């Protein structure tokens, strides 16, 4: 009786077109001891509002996202941060969808605009990981549970090993992704990790952490924030815009029989949804560049397949032939990606924001030449929560 099958373009679904008019980020670092939480968040907001050329009175609502409250020991931080994020007197929503939160926060902020309730929305995500220890905060010790916890890397490494087994992928693929993303980071002054001379050999010489993952194949723990200003078509004026051509979220249960952790159905469905909305039939050809959530090197080939950029088992070959390099056929993570900066709650929004910067032509030294259509992607939990969007330099 109720089922609704959504087909057709984003424009057909929503009467109101929305676009990103400003992206603001902080400098990412292991420890931003120079700022408070409020100061960190505000740094990104000030940069986004400056880029968007908007003042506070133009902001109708604020959407805040971050990962678990235990990272900073502040419950419902939108309450404490209300003053810093300029939310006083306005609606504010706090999103938490695990690691995908930066992406889903972007989707919800855009939903505010597309609903017709708001013209211009400020959205910001952050994590100040230096306030605590992520491995502790992600899995404190509970009664009756065995001491098995081995951190996020320990959780994802078995999925990666299974990918390698399934498709007989050579071990240098992981090193290659790790080196490529860090080389891109050298072109991004905001990136946390700047490793001069980074190459595959340097990655392969670093200690093993969670086999098959080596130290430099893993993301860092960062402090940082990312903000965006999203507005409706009638408010854009003559600003640069990244038009939102498709956006979606998908979730599946953690411990669900039949779930394929290596190639999660939720990721497949979410990608199909945004391609459908944006009218994309061949993402490898039609998307100019993508910022994809790759916290461990091997997730690049895994997501290439999951997101339909290539057939199953072909992802590592795409990586191996340098197609994902910044000057390749399908550039991935031009900013350096999660492997170079990882303020968890913001990491997804950085993907969404960097995709927007590319199509606005504002990505500076890590700009992909002539980028018109870009994808932002985030995932979280046990590779079970997904948020994605497609942005374009033109509305048509």
């Amino acid at each position, binding site marked *: *009786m*109720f*089922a*609704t099958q*959504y087909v057709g373009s984003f424009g057909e*679904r*929503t*009467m109101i077109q929305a676009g990103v008019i400003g992206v603001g980020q902080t400098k990412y670092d292991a420890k931003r001891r120079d700022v*408070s939480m409020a100061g960190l968040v505000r740094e990104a907001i000030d940069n986004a509002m400056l880029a968007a050329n908007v003042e506070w009175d133009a902001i109708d609502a604020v959407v805040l996202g971050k990962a*678990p*409250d*235990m990272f*900073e*020991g*502040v*419950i419902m931080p*939108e*309450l*404490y*941060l*209300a*003053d810093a994020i300029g939310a*006083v*007197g*306005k*609606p*504010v*929503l*706090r*999103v*938490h*969808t*695990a690691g995908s939160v930066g992406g*889903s926060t972007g*989707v*919800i902020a855009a*939903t505010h605009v*597309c*609903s*017709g*309730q708001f013209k211009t929305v400020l959205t910001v995500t952050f994590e100040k990981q230096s306030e605590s220890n992520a491995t502790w*905060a992600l899995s*404190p010790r*509970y009664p009756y549970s065995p001491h098995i916890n081995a951190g996020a890397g320990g959780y994802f490494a078995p999925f990666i090993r299974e990918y390698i087994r399934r498709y007989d992928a050579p071990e240098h693929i992981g090193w290659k992704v790790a080196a490529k993303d860090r080389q891109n980071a050298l072109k991004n002054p905001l990136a946390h990790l700047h490793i001069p001379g980074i190459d595959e050999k340097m990655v392969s010489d670093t200690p093993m952490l969670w086999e098959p993952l080596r130290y430099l194949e893993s993301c860092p723990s960062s402090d940082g924030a990312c903000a965006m200003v999203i507005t409706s078509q009638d408010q854009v004026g003559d600003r640069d815009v990244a038009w939102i051509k498709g956006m*979606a*979220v*998908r*979730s599946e*249960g*953690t*411990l*669900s029989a039949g*779930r394929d952790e290596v190639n*999660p*159905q*939720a990721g497949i469905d*979410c990608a199909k949804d945004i391609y459908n909305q944006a009218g994309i039939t061949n993402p490898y050809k039609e998307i100019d560049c993508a910022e994809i959530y790759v916290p461990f090197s091997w997730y690049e080939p895994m997501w290439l397949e999951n997101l339909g950029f290539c057939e199953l088992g072909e992802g590592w070959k795409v990586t191996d032939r340098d197609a994902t390099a910044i000057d390749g056929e399908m550039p991935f993570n031009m900013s350096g990606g999660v492997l170079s900066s990882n303020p968890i709650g913001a990491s997804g929004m950085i993907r969404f924001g960097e995709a927007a910067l590319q199509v606005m032509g504002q990505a500076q030294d890590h700009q992909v030449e002539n980028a018109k259509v870009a994808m932002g992607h985030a995932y979280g*939990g*046990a590779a*079970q929560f997904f948020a994605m969007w497609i942005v374009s330099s033109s509305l048509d």
Partner: protein
Amino acid sequence: MKKVAIIGYAQHPILSNAGALNEVELIMPVVHHLFDELGIDQKNIDFTCSGSCDYLQGAAFAFVEGLSAIQTNPPIKESHVEMDAAWAMYESMLKIQMGDADTALIYGFGKSSPGNLDSIMSLQMDPYYISPLWPDRVSLAALQARVLLDKKIVTKEQMLSAVIEARVNSKNNKNALINDLIDESTYLEEEIISSPLNAFDCPPISDGSSAMIIASEEKAYEYTDKPILIEGIDHRIESSNLGSRDLSSSKSLQASMDHLQLNNFEFDVAELHTQFSFELPFLRSLLGLVDVPTNLSGGPLVGNVMMCAGLDAIGKTYESLKQNDLHRGLAHASSGPCLQHNMLVHLEKEQ
């Protein structure tokens, strides 16, 4: 703008200690109850959104555990707010208005029994200047109560009758945790927790869950002849700096009233997320509800499931309109210390 209707609401019996039930076991019954009532299942739901708080039970990612209660094969469009589920409903409504969904399932769950809510909620405050002092939630409310009493905006007699009436009204809510009646002398003899508030002025430690289904107006007519529509909704936050707020008023609620054009509007019924006795007369006066039957469910004083109680106020208003020959209802949800963040929901039953 697309109109959105509430088409179902269910509440778990409120428990003082739901230790026998994990998140999944708390959520599943209310969701199934709603599905059965409407003759639908998860495949009929376009968007799912939940509200919860990890710190209540001290588990990172409580909402991830909770999601196991929901059918997620095939994967679902889903999101989560670390807020009262009233805000999950708000997000879901935007999805419907945008045209990305026609139906949405909202659920909230909260267990306050595993920890000490007083110390836990101190962590809602400014982490540099305030939370290191560990101000408990009752003492923070008491600061506002004293200001209101001092300015004679609220009287002790009103606090007493708020407590007594909540318990009388609890008979209307089969899920209420507290239903024993008390008299004036019992109230006056009760030990003060943080003056001017005694235990009866405070909500009970509660565990539970609630769920709601909303739909576009068009879809709602497939289910009912008289949809209960969200005619207006608005929420706003105030400063975290308690010392810069005027605790004798509510700038956020006044702004929402103006935005929704509710000044001098006549409601038939109201449910307010007033956790402490004094908040009820304060908000009734502020919202122009002095003559409007308010908190007929007993409200948070007879059962206050954290992360659900705001959604419950909306759900109870919906139930009042649905079950009675009433037309217009007002619901209120709040978050943060001293009513920092408030939502108003104006519901109307199609006539």
